[in-house]
Structure formats: C-alpha cells, structure tokens
C-alpha cells in the first residue's frame, strides 16, 4: 500500500537523521521532528488513492474549513489531514460494519447507523450531492467557492438544510455526510502520524499531548505541573 512504501522510505531517511540529534548535534538547525516533517509527503505532491480529482478538491477544501490555517496552531492542510482520509478510505475503513438488510431509513436516531452504505459510498455520494447543490446555488463546485461561502455551505450541511434527495441521493442525509467527514478529519488531525495525518506531530505539539510516550510513573503524582516533554510517535520520531 502506498503509505507503507512512503513510511519505510521515511523511516530509512529518518534513521540516519535522527541519530545525530540524539548525540546533541543538529543538522542545519533541524530537530528530528522538523526533519520528519520535511520527509513526509507534501499535500501538493500527493496522488490520492481513493478520491478522484474532483473529490480530492472537495476534501482538501472541506478540511481547510474544518481545521483552518488561520489563528493559533496548525491547520488540516499543513498536517496532511486529507492524506489520512484518503488512506483510510482506500484501506479497510468500514469493513467492520454490519450491512445485512433490511434497512429502516426512518429508524429513531437512538438506534444509530441504519443506512446501507459503506463510508466509501458515503463520501462518493455525499461529495457528488454537495457539488451538485453548490453548482445549482452558487454556480460552481464547493472547492471553487470562497472560504466564507464554503463555511455557509458546511453550516447548511450540518443543519441538514441541503436536501440531497433533490439531487438523486435518496439515502444519505446532508448532516450524516457532514458528521462522517468532520469526525474523520478530526481523527486524522489527532491520530498518530503513522496514518498519514498529524504531520510532524504538530497537532499534538499544539495541544500538549505527548503521544506514544506511555510511561509516566515519575510524573503522575506531580500535580498541576505542566508536563515538560514533547511528543513521540509510534515510529519513534520526537517532536
């Protein structure tokens, strides 16, 4: 799989770079995390496996609104969240769902997920419906709209004020599509970088989560003291 190849390439390059900072030496002022970030694929150069070109344009634009670059802290594009989403959808995401019929599309919300779709179908059909609505309402696809208009569109999706059925999508509700995409984007932002997002562990550094350190015997009883160390990742990168 694509990510595995890139990961092993990263790992090889990193192992030679990381050895030096561990000895107190830095290469041209780079920390290991900064070096890791340089080696991670750039969003511009990434070829999506699951998403088509049009879908990829939608996803990158939506991620940029979900977790924008403006304000404090890294945004979704800087941290490769769309790469994470593409890799998950190209992988086995959704293979765990029980999808035997019959389906009751009018089931009460408390009974949970009751549509006959895999996540992959949710994205394919959802993006198509949103872009169709955007073309009708704003004469362009979602990705081509300005940021303020995109935010308005997303708010309408979240409030289910866009009727997908008018665009041939009878099963999926706008809100369900929105929630699916937002949840996955947040997961990509905060998951270990091994899955393709949270590039350079930047989201963890921003919030103060130490990642996979997973050993705090000497810290647990130090109450109300800010933990001083940065994160490590499953690959052993340090931020």
């Amino acid at each position, binding site marked *: 799989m694509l990510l595995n190849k890139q990961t092993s390439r990263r790992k090889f390059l990193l192992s030679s770079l990381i050895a030096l900072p561990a000895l107190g030496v830095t290469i041209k002022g780079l920390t290991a995390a900064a070096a890791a970030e340089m080696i991670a694929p750039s969003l511009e150069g990434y070829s999506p496996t699951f998403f088509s070109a049009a879908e990829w344009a939608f996803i990158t634009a939506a991620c940029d609104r979900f977790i924008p670059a403006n304000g404090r802290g890294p945004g979704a594009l800087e941290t490769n969240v769309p790469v994470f989403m593409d890799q998950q959808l190209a992988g086995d995401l959704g293979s765990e769902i029980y999808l035997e019929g019959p389906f009751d599309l009018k089931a009460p919300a408390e009974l949970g997920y009751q549509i006959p779709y895999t996540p992959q179908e949710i994205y394919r059909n959802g993006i198509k419906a949103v872009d169709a609505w955007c073309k009708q309402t704003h004469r362009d696809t979602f990705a081509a709209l300005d940021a303020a208009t995109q935010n308005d569109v997303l708010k309408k999706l979240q409030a289910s004020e866009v009727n997908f059925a008018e665009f041939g999508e009878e099963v999926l509700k706008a809100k369900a599509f929105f929630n699916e995409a937002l949840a996955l984007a947040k997961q990509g932002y905060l998951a270990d970088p091994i899955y393709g997002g949270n590039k350079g562990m930047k989201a963890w550094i921003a919030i*103060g989560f130490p990642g996979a350190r997973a050993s705090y015997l000497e810290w647990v009883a130090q109450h109300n003291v800010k933990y001083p160390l940065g994160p490590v990742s499953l690959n052993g990168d340090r931020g």
Partner: protein
Amino acid sequence: MANITNDEVDVVVVGLGWTGSLMSIELAQAGLKVRALERGEDRNNADFAYPKPADQYAYGVRNKIMVTPKDGALTVRHNMHSTALPTRKWGAFVPGTGVGGSGLHWTGVLIRPTPTDIKLKTYADQAYKPGILQEDMRIGDFPFTWEEMEPYLDKFDKICGLSGNTGNLRGEIQEGGDPFEGPRSNPYPLPALKDTLNCSMFAEAARKLGYHPFPNPSANVSQAWTNPYGNQIAPCNYCGYCSKYPCLNYSKASPQTAVMDALKRMDNFDYRVNANVLKVELHPDGKTARGVTYADADGNIVFQPAKIVVLAGFQFVNVRLMLLSGIGKPYDPITETGVVGRNYAYLSNGGTTLFFKDKHFNPFATAGATGQMFNDVSPGNYDGPSLGFIGGAKIHSSQATGTPIGTALPKGTPDWGQGWKEGMQDWYGHSMKISISTGCMSYRGHYVDLDPTYKDPWGQPLLRITFDWKENELKLQQYLRTIVNNIAQELSPDSYSESFLSMDSHWDITKYVSTHNVGGAVMGESPETSALNRYLQSWDVHNVFVPGGNAFPQNFQANPTALIGAITLFSAQAIKEQYLKNPGPLVQA
C-alpha cells in the same frame, strides 16, 4: 469444507476470556483434560509490546481488538411492539473477542457489590412499602450468601493483585477505604495507585460534603505482584492507554497476565482459536450435552465431544448459544414463563465535565482505573425508600486516559473551524470529570431472544435485546445529577457542562456507556425464574455450566468483573468437589 470430529475431552470451554481462563485452569488443576474454543484470534504479550498499543486511532477509534459488528452484531429495540434493528456500528457497548476477551481491554476497576446488592430483593421487600416500586420490576436475590462468596471474591482479588484501600476488614471499618463495603477476610493485596490531580480535588470536595471517597479499586497493579497461579504482574507505569487497549506494560490483570502463562504450561490443557461455536449438541433425551459444534477458520464444521460444556463467552454470547441449542425454556414476556432471556439489564452513566483554565491535569499520565469514588448512594445506604426508587451509583472522578480524539470542550466552543482548533489548544488537559455509573433493575419486558430477521455470517439469528430506560432508573439519574453538580460547584471551575439522562430519555445505542450487559441466563433458587442454579449449572442440562454476567438477576452499581470472577471460581470448586464424584443436578429443583 469438511465435517470433522475431534478427540473427546473432559471439558470444553467456549470462550477464552476471564471466565473461560479461570474455569480452564481450575479444572485442569483437578486433572481434567480441558480444551478451550475461542472464536477470535490468539493474542500474546508480544502483540502488545511497546509502543504498539499506544495508538488511539487503532484501538480507541477503530476498535482493533474488539469483535466487529459484522461478526458480532445484535439487534436492539425499545419495546416488544417495535421492530429491532442491528447494531451496525458499536456505540453504547463494545464487546471483545480473541484470547483474553473483554478481560484484555477492560479498564481494571475491580470492585465488589455490597452484601445488600447480593440480597436486593430481600432488602426491597423489607425497606419499600408495597406500590412504591414499579409493578413490572423483577429483581432477585443472588442465590448465595455474602459469607459463602467472600472467599472467592478474595481469591479473585489475589489473582488480579487488587490495589486499593481496605474499607472493612472482618467487620472493622478502616480509614481511607469504602466504609460501605462488605466485610472482607483479608486486606487488599496491594496499596492504592497514586492519585492524579482530579482525584485529590474530587476526594477533598466529596469529603467536605460528607461523603466517603476512596481510591478506585484497581486491577492495574500498584506494585509487582505474584498471584496464586504463580503469574507475575508488573507495577503500572501510568501509560494512559488502558480501557479498550491491551496493556503494554504487563500491569493490568487480564487472562493473559493473570492466568494464561500458567495455564499454557499445563499438558492437559489446549485451546483452538478462530473456532466459532455454533451450537451445544445434546443427547436425544435433552438432559445432557455431548459436546459442541464449531466452525473453524477454513469453514470446516467440527464436532468437539466433551463430558462437560462450559459456556464462557460474553453475556449475550452465552445466552444466544443456550437459545440456539435448546438449553432451557426461552422466556416469554407475555405469559411470563420460560427462563432463558429474562432479566436482561444494562447500566447508565452520566457526568459533569469541569473546566479549569489554570490547572494542568496531565490526563495522559494515568492508569485506566485511576480515580476516586464513593459508594454512599448504594442500596441501604441512602434514603431510596422515601425517594421512591431503588438502585445506586458509584459517584467518581476517574481519569482513564488522555488520548486527544474526542476531547471534551467547554459549552459554546464551536465543533469545527478556528474556534474548535484553538479550543483544543486552550482546553486539552484542563478539564476533569465527575461521573456516575448506576445500577439497573430488571423488568418483565426487558429480555433477550433470537431475532426473527437478521442473521450472522454463519447464518444463525442475531440475539435481540428489548430494553429501554424505566422511570426508576431515570429518577435515580435526576437525584445523582444534583449530588454531582453540588460537588462540581464546590470545586469552582471556570465552567462546566453536564450530561445526564432526562425523564424522557430512551436508550441511545450510539453513545458509549460501558460493556456491562448482564442477565438473560440468571442464577437463582428456582428453575421457574432462573436458568441456572447457584453453581451456574443449567437446571435443564446438568453438564452445562454458564459463568458470566449473564447470571446477574439485575445490575448493581459496582463494576461486574469482581463478582463474575468469584461466581466462576465458586462454580469451578463445585464441579471439582461435587459434580465429578456424582454427575447430576447439584441443586434439586
């Protein structure tokens, strides 16, 4: 695909989690040839070597070591007049699979029920005036006394290296422990885990308001421990990956750390994985089982002959196998006859999240069981009879993990955009929670049976749950909400947000509560109202034993594992001492 017949064994154990591993080792120690059949994968300590489990996305989000809904779904409905729908994704509960079962990924809170919880029906009949409790409530006593079960609770505490403060030692109340706990014959094997900031804050406020907090009793061990089977459990390093994760430090008592190492060394024990038991096969007279049939990983249908069958799967796996195999009469809620499926109960939770801009909780530096709780609101210890409801709650401030996906943010924080991103930076690590975990009574209309429509990948009907919140449980929630929010206010947070059930709430299968589903094949004094006798032996098929949460006639406020371990050991002892000498019903109906 072929039909295969295995060599006969003395005991076949279906499922290799807590109850399966305990039964296996106890019966193998008696010299019996024991074979366990586990539907999931093998899981060894090498699979959990650092840093593999330190991965929230794989374990916490994608449920890496749980059964998939595709293989293990149930159907759910709120009442017997509606159509049940499948749990297509997990939400309210997440059952395990594989060697270790739910015992591999549990949080490790190992607390006993109280003596009143064990005799709840007797207490209710004495303390509540007729007509106070709902007419359709069907609570029962456990069919044993505190004194009979205490040695087995004690043994399981030692198997797990229970860490915490003793509250009642042989009738003497001990400072720092739970004054409401039943008398224990021995102190806790190990001292309590270290408190985190939320624990100290909560305990101080609760004590000030007159409650009796104590550290969550923990099976994440505080010091190195060698248990009665000779297994060694290592001191917890507060890694922050516990509930839903296998332990990366050999510190959480689990079938792997506490039982399997010793069990695997026994020549008269073996186990098969990817062995999905489809049915218990009965002799023509229906009075005894002759073994079980399972599907192996290659799709072969395998018959495993055995003299004794132990159903040691999760609660609903056991009940479903009984229904699929014709063991005991299925429950009918209309005529209120039959026993298999009755008294299904769950639990509710809720809580308030407190935000403190200037406090660092370092939520990632924690054990799964880290927390403080109090048991003041448990049956017999508060004024339930005049309030008009029964049941209790653990009220606690636990800090099970600090993994960031799903971080709670203050009210008014946007759920996406710049506001969410900056909210995460401002509030991650700056909140604590005060929570409730409640008991849940059993009712005439709450039960499990076989679904008429939906099937699993092996073509067998799914188990159907009929359950919803009742007035008793919802009133209890309202009462607890007041207590929790009084403690919250005592702590003066910058803000807080709450999540409790309202009086018109219905059971929501999308929101995680806990995987403490109980009942359905309950233990009792009478074959008219219980599927199992006090030794977890089927009243109808005497060589079938069914240990697990399925045996609880209702759910108490304590976590179920301590009692599940104890009744399993109690049953194993009865098999060894009584059943082997004289196979037949251990209790005369």
